[in-house]
C-alpha cells in the first residue's frame, strides 16, 4: 500500500549508521538505568544501545522486541522527551540526552529490513484466547501469549489491523505500511486476525478460555452545538484516518481545529501539510492547561499553526466558528479534536466486568477485570494514552492470563510481595482492583 500513501516529510529523519554508532558510544551504559525505568515497557535501553555500538543490530533489535513487540512504532511515536530521554542522566550535567528514540528506530529498521522474526520457541498449549481490537494493546498481548504457546485470535471491526497505529498516528511520524510490519511480525508468531463487524459475546465466551479487551476508545466526542452536522465540520480521527489511507478530505484554504490535545496538533499540522495556508487551534482554556506535549506544541508553532486561547465555540457556520468570547474565526473547514468517547455500548455488553467513568477497572498488576475470564488494557482502561502504555498493559495482561491459566511454570505466581516499599508504591495491601486515575498512594 506504500505507493498510495501520502508522502509527508518525516518529523525525525533516521540516523545514518555512522551517526548511530557515534550516538550509541555516547551512552554511559548506566547501571540500573533511569531510562529503562522510565519506559513503561522497561526496554533494557543501555543493553540495546551497547549492541548498536558494537554493530550487533539484530541483537539490539531482539533486546527491544523482547520487552516491547511494538518497538518500531514506539521508537517513532513515543514522547521520549518525557519518558526515557527525559530520564537520561546526561540532563544532570546539562548534556544532550542520548537520542534513545532514534537509536531504537535504527535497530528496528534494521530488524525489519532483514525480515526479522520474534525469537519465540513456543511450546503449543491448548488454551485459547480472544483479543478484542487489533490495536497496540492487543498486539502486545497476543505476542506475549504466543510466547507462552497459547492460541490467539484478534478480532477487529476495521479492515486493517493495527488500530490507531494504522489509522490515527500522524503520517509524518509513522505510516500505515510501517504499522503493517508490526502486525505481520505478530501474525508470524501464529496469531489469527479476524475482521468482524459485530461480535457475539456469547460466542466468545463459549469458544475461548480468556478474553482480552483492547478496544481502545470510540469516535471523537461531539460538542453538541449548532452547525456540528455541516459538511464542513469534520472529526479529527476520521480526518486523519482518511488522509492516512490516501483519501484526504478537502480542507480548503483555512482550517480551525477545536481542542488542546495531541490529536488536535496532529490534525492541525496535517491540515497545514495538506495545503491549508491558515490553520488555527482553538482551545477553550489557556496555554498552560493544554494537554498536548510541550514538544508537540512547539512543533505545531514551528510549522505555522496559530493558537487561539480561551475560545469556546458556540456555533459553526459554513464559513466561520463563532466563539463565546464574541470572536468569529473565518474558516473553510472545522476539525473537532476534543477527545474520544468511551465505547460504552460495546463494554456494557460484557455485564460481568466493572466500569468506572467509562473505563474498564482492572488489577493493574495482572490486567484482570472483575470477571476472571476477562482481562483488559490500553486506552479502554487508561482513558487514552500512549502506544507504549498500551503495549505495556497488553503484555502485562498476557502475563496475567498465563498465570491465571496455570500455563506458565517458569514464573512464580506472585513475585511482588517481597519488594522494597519504595517500589511497591508504599501500599501495605493494595486493592486488587484499582482504576488508574486513582492516586497511587490511596
Amino acid at each position, binding site marked *: 500500500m506504500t505507493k498510495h500513501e501520502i508522502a509527508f516529510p518525516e518529523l525525525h529523519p533516521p540516523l545514518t549508521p555512522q551517526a548511530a554508532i*557515534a550516538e550509541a558510544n555516547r551512552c554511559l551504559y548506566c547501571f540500573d538505568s533511569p531510562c529503562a525505568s522510565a519506559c513503561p515497557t*522497561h526496554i533494557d535501553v543501555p543493553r540495546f544501545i551497547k549492541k548498536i555500538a558494537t554493530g550487533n543490530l539484530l541483537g539490539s533489535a531482539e533486546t527491544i522486541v523482547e520487552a516491547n513487540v511494538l518497538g518500531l512504532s514506539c521508537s517513532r511515536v513515543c514522547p521520549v522527551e518525557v*519518558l526515557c530521554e527525559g530520564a537520561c542522566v546526561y540532563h544532570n550535567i546539562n548534556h544532550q540526552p542520548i537520542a534513545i528514540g532514534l537509536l531504537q528506530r535504527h535497530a528496528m529498521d534494521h530488524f525489519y529490513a532483514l525480515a526479522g522474526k520474534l525469537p519465540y520457541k513456543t511450546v503449543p498449549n491448548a488454551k485459547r484466547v480472544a483479543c478484542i481490537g487489533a490495536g497496540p494493546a492487543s498486539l502486545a498481548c497476543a505476542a506475549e501469549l504466543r510466547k507462552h504457546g497459547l492460541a490467539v485470535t484478534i478480532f477487529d471491526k476495521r479492515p486493517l489491523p493495527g488500530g490507531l497505529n494504522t489509522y490515527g498516528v500522524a503520517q509524518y511520524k509513522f505510516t500505515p505500511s510501517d504499522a503493517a510490519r508490526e502486525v505481520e511480525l505478530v501474525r508470524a508468531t501464529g496469531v489469527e486476525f479476524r475482521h468482524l463487524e459485530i461480535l457475539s459475546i456469547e460466542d466468545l465466551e463459549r469458544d475461548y478460555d480468556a478474553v482480552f479487551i483492547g478496544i481502545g476508545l470510540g469516535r471523537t466526542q461531539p460538542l453538541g452545538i449548532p452547525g456540528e452536522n455541516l459538511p464542513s465540520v469534520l472529526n479529527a480521527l476520521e480526518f486523519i484516518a482518511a488522509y492516512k489511507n490516501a483519501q484526504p478530505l478537502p480542507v480548503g484554504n483555512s482550517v480551525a481545529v477545536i481542542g488542546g490535545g495531541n490529536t488536535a496538533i496532529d490534525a492541525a499540522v496535517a491540515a497545514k501539510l495538506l495545503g491549508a495556508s491558515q490553520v488555527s487551534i482553538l482551545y477553550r482554556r489557556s496555554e498552560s492547561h493544554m494537554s498536548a506535549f510541550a514538544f508537540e506544541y512547539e512543533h505545531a508553532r514551528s510549522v505555522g499553526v496559530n493558537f487561539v486561547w480561551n475560545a469556546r465555540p458556540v456555533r459553526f457556520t459554513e464559513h466561520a466558528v463563532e466563539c463565546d468570547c464574541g470572536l468569529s474565526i473565518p474558516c473553510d473547514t472545522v476539525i473537532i479534536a476534543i477527545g474520544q468517547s468511551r465505547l460504552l455500548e460495546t463494554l456494557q455488553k460484557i455485564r460481568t466486568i466493572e466500569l468506572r467513568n467509562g473505563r474498564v477497572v482492572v488489577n493493574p*498488576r495482572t490486567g484482570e477485570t472483575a470477571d476472571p475470564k476477562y482481562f483488559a488494557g490500553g486506552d479502554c482502561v487508561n482513558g487514552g494514552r500512549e502506544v507504549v502504555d498500551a503495549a505495556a498493559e497488553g503484555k502485562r495482561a498476557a502475563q496475567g492470563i498465563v498465570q491465571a491459566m496455570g500455563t506458565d511454570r517458569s514464573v512464580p505466581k506472585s513475585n511482588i510481595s517481597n519488594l522494597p516499599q519504595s517500589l511497591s508504591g508504599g501500599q501495605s495491601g493494595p486493592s486488587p482492583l484499582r482504576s*488508574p486515575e486513582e492516586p497511587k498512594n490511596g
Partner: protein
Amino acid sequence: MADLTTHFAGIRCPNPFWLASGPPANCGDQVMRGFDAGWGGAVWKTIGDPIVNVSSRYSSVDLNGYRMMGLNNIELISDRPIADNLREISEVKRRYPHHAVIASLMVESKRETWHDIVKRAEDAGADGLELNFGCPHGMSERGMGSAVGQVPEYACMITEWVKEAAHTPVLVKLTPNISDIRTVARAAKRGGADALSAINTINSITGIDLDTLTPRPDVGGKSSHGGYCGPAVKPIALHMVQQIAGDPGVQLPISAIGGISSWREAAEFILLGAGTLQACTAPMHYGFRIVEDMIDGLSRWMDSKGYANLDAFRGLSLPRVTDWQHLDLNYKIIARINPDTCIGCQLCYTACWDGAHQCIHVTGRASPEIYAAMSAVAIVSTPTTPAVSHATPAKRIPTVDEHECVGCNLCWLVCPVENCISMVRVDKGDHPQSWAEKAKS
C-alpha cells in the same frame, strides 16, 4: 613568554617540536611547509636505497568515534632516490638555516656503505644524523631497522662505523620491540652515540576485517604486521623514555617519540627528561598546523608554572618514578562521592562491585521483579513537559564503605563527571614504610 629555544646534543632550533621521520617529512616541500607552520625541526623520512612500497599501507584503531587512536603502517623507508632527498635537504637548509634538519639513515650493514651515506648526508647540510635501528616491518626482514636495534652488539658496531665518519651529532633511534630497551640504549652509548630517539613503532596487527577475514591493511587478501603509533602508544613511550632517562649507564639526550599530539604530551615527556619532541601521527591526522597550539600551550603552561625555559623543568618528574618496593605502604586514600554532582549513572557501583573490591553500595537494584512491580504502579500520568529540575534521586546515589575502600581509583576513573568522585587522603598517623623497608625489618 617562556623561551622554547632548544639546544639538543649540539643541534640548535627555535623550539623542541620536530616532525618525526615518516610521511610528513618525506620531501623538501613538506618540511618547508612544516617549518612555515612553526615546527622547529624535522627528521627526514629515512634515506637509503629506494624501496618499492605496497598499497594499502596504513590501518588504524578507532575508539568510540575517535579516529586513529592508534595508527599502524607497513610503509618502508623513502621510495625516492637518495640524490633527490639530499638535494632537497640542501635546499631546505639554505632557506631555513635556523631550523634543524636531521637525516634519518638506513643502509645495509656494511661499514663502507654507512661511511658513504653519512658523508653524503652531511655534505648535503644535515644538522645531525638519526640511525633508524627501529623500523619493525619489511626492512627488518632484510637485516636492517629493528633487526639491528634488537641486537645490542650490532647497534654498537654500526654506531661506531657511523661515528668514524660523522662530524654532526648522531642520534640512534631505538625500537620498543625488545624486552629491555636499556640494553640497546647502553650499546648505542658505547658505540659513541650523541643522543637517542625513542620510541620507534610497536609491532602490531590492528584488526581483522570480519567480512573478508583479512587483517588490515589489506594487500590483495593478505597483510603483514606493521608498526603501531599514535595516541595509543604514549604510555608505552613514556615508560621507555623514563627507563632510558633514568638509567645511569645511558645519560644521553633523548628525542622523545610516541603519541605526542599536543603540548600536554610534550610537557610530560620533557618532565621525564626528553630534549626534543617528535610527532608523526598527529600531523598525519590534522596537518602541520597543530604545532601552533603545541608551542602556544607549552609556553603558557611554562609561564603558569614559572619555568623560563625548557631546562627549568626537564626531568623534574624523574625522581618521582621509583621501583614499587619503595612506595609507601602506609599511604592511604579512599573514594568520596559528592552527592551534589553525582548524576546517578552507578558506573562506580558496578565497576567496584564487579571489577574491584565491592565497597560501593546502592540501595536498590534493577531486576525483572522490580520492573514488574514498577509497571503495576508507575503509570499514573505522563507529564506533558520535560522535567525542569534534574536533581539525582537520593536512592540512585551510591555510597562508599570507607572502611572497606582500598583506594584503588577505579570508581574515580570510570565516573563520567569530573570532580564528582575524589580520592581523599585518610591519615592514620603511621610512619611511611615501603615494602623494601618492611622486608628488611
